């Protein structure tokens, strides 16, 4: 999937493509467990989340509930992502 939510970057700016993994209720609502997102650099975990949630109606309401991981470690929405990162959007955890 590509996002058109950002204005066209200058020709010199690189774009960043990440693999996004989604789980549980979010996977169910999106109808898939992984997707590819391309955004202009620089970009953050929160930008990736916004692009994914913009891809379906009513998904924005999940925004406050989601936590994040980059390359299998917890992180925050303001963390930068680089090309090739594995970004995970985590609905409320329920292990144990």
């Amino acid at each position, binding site marked *: 999937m590509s996002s058109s939510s950002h204005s066209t970057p200058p020709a010199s700016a690189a774009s960043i493509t990440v693999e996004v993994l989604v*789980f549980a209720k979010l996977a169910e609502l999106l109808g898939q467990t992984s997707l590819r997102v391309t955004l202009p650099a620089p970009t953050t975990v929160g930008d990736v989340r916004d692009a994914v949630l913009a891809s379906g109606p009513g998904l924005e309401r999940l925004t406050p509930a989601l936590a994040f991981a980059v390359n299998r470690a917890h992180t925050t929405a303001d963390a930068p992502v680089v090309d090739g990162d594995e970004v*995970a959007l*985590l609905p409320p955890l329920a292990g144990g």
Partner: protein
Amino acid sequence: MPCLTSSPLDLDRLVARVVSPERGGVATFTGVVRNHHDGRSVLRLEYSAYDAMAEAECARIVSEAERQWPVRVALEHRTGHLEVGDAAVMIAAAGAHRQEAFDACRYVIEEVKRRVPIWKREHFADGTMSWVDPTARPKAADVAPSDGPVP
């Protein structure tokens, strides 16, 4: 040792991984699928995980506990379909004395619940199902059907 497994958990096997002659205290915790949630009857649970991260996070939690206390810790968590009464998570912590064993065991279960990317979907007696969201309601709402009238 991997933390996630689709096979039944076995407490003896976990304890065997951590005991030794110099460790006189072994604390264990077992989390079991219960038959009620928010006053509704639960038939079974379905656990799913972000496997690679869950393994990494479990390993981090175990090594944090083993750094913080003089203990050895074993941790396993089920995935897949579980029935009421099945063990979903087991922890064994062994140290020279009970204090560090209890403290490490408590630390591990609290961190597992807070950090390990695992989700569960409840299948209710009425045929419906829903993803469990521990942040959605206060714990006080989680009472057994027999504790009072169902709202």
